[in-house]
């Protein structure tokens, strides 16, 4: 099956982007250079095509009850306009996906899921929706989405797109009428910087993209820097730090799992995992040398050199210049400051266990 294309595909080609397959889509890896694009987001403003993300609506009398049942975070009695981050879990606690839940109305929620998981998630959601008075709609193909990220994002969105952004608090959104259609503007992102994500029809997103590019005040940014940016601030990527076999507790995302909620799928497994104690955990590792740790590389005990885990994501961090990675390691290795080694090509490289955030987030709360 060939990869899908987003509504901005032709725009990427016109900008000579290097295109790569990602999550079942043909997506821009970079337009100019990953480092330049990364720095644009940290220092000014970058724009990403994130139309590959999935949008699933849950509507009906039992919408809240149903979302509470499939989602780890607690949305009970949430205000309209609030956004929650959390996960959907298998019965055994492994992660189906991580997602954002938007409360659109008392009986309507929008679930924003990862591109690669749209089909899996929607089948899973439909299966579990049986017995609830809800309807579910996979609207992924009707929506385009762009992310405008960086310290200048607010000014850019207000001045160039004329969107009401300064009034939005972090992790809130607004449905607004613009150019004759209803769009969603939310103060969210995946870079560790302030920013906005805009959801609209394909035509609207194409219009917004062109306006932003013509302004000359933003840099088009590809998935390459999206990954280096999210990695530096310790944000997980499904497929790396979270998988069907990894629980949110092991990934260090316990704050998005409300075990005091009456019931949700996977809760029992996590309660048990917590009671027994974790056997492994995602940590940060900083290496002494410049060698670059990458996904799947072996992590070994500093003394015995036995394999104790593997790298989930690693880079020579663009913002700090350090060779760092996140890694899933046996729990006895998960001690801050503990020496540890990573096997890179033929050599064992020395490093230490650190926090899994290598650069401080710069959100506007």
């Amino acid at each position, binding site marked *: 099956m060939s990869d899908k294309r987003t509504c901005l595909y032709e725009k990427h080609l016109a900008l000579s982007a290097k295109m790569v397959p990602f999550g079942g889509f043909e997506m821009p*890896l*970079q337009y100019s*250079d*990953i*480092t330049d694009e990364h720095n644009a987001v940290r220092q000014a403003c970058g724009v990403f095509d994130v139309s590959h993300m999935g949008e699933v609506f849950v509507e009906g009398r039992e919408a809240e009850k149903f979302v509470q049942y499939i989602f780890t975070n607690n949305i009970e009695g949430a205000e309209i306009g609030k956004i929650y981050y959390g996960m959907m879990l298998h019965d055994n606690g492994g992660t189906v996906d991580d997602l954002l839940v938007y409360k659109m109305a008392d009986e309507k929620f929008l679930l924003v899921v990862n591109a690669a998981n749209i089909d899996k998630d929607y089948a899973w959601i439909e299966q579990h929706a049986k017995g609830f008075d809800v309807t579910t709609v996979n609207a992924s193909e009707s929506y385009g989405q762009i992310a405008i990220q960086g310290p200048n994002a607010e000014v850019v969105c207000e001045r160039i797109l004329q969107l009401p952004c300064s009034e939005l608090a972090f992790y809130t959104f607004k449905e607004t009428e613009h150019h004759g259609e209803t769009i969603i503007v939310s103060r969210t992102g995946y870079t560790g910087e302030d920013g906005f994500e805009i959801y609209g029809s394909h035509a609207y997103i194409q219009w917004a993209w062109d306006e932003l590019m013509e302004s000359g005040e933003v840099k088009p940014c590809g998935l*390459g820097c999206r990954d*280096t940016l999210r990695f530096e601030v310790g944000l997980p990527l499904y497929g790396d730090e979270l998988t069907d076999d990894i629980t949110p507790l092991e990934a260090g995302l316990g704050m998005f799992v409300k075990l005091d909620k009456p019931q949700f799928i996977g809760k029992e497994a996590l309660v048990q995992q917590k009671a027994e104690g974790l056997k492994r955990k995602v940590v940060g590792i900083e290496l002494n040398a*410049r*060698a*670059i740790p*990458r996904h799947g590389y072996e992590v070994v005990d500093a003394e015995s050199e036995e394999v104790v885990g593997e790298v989930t994501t690693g*880079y*020579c961090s*663009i913002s700090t210049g350090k*060779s760092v990675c996140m890694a899933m390691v046996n729990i006895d290795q998960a001690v801050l400051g503990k020496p540890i080694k990573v096997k*890179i*090509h033929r*050599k064992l490289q020395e490093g230490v266990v650190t926090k899994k955030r290598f650069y401080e987030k710069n959100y506007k709360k």
Partner: protein
Amino acid sequence: MENVYFSESHEYVRVEGEYGYVGITDYAQHQLGNVVYVDMPEVDDEVSAGEEFGAVESVKAASDLISPVSGEVVERNDALEDTPELINEDAFANWIIKVKLSDPSELENLMSEDEYNRVCE
């Protein structure tokens, strides 16, 4: 260019007497993008034609270095440790390792510049 031979995996070897200077081609550095790290063997290590001897890495990916020739590493370009981007500036001037060739007849298995340029088209 005289005395320069190319491999299908985009390495070159520039031969001077019994020594060969091995690096990646300009085409390869361009495909790779900004080089952020070069993993090199140690002096005195043996390298073999057709086998991996290190890697060049961009932000996004690691690319294995395959030696076009066999022999002993007599020198490595240590400037690449701190300034790997030299490879992007001039991949031909910034060779990676200098090898004492153990079997010069291996050069016959490599391509001339003209042949290599046709492969890259």
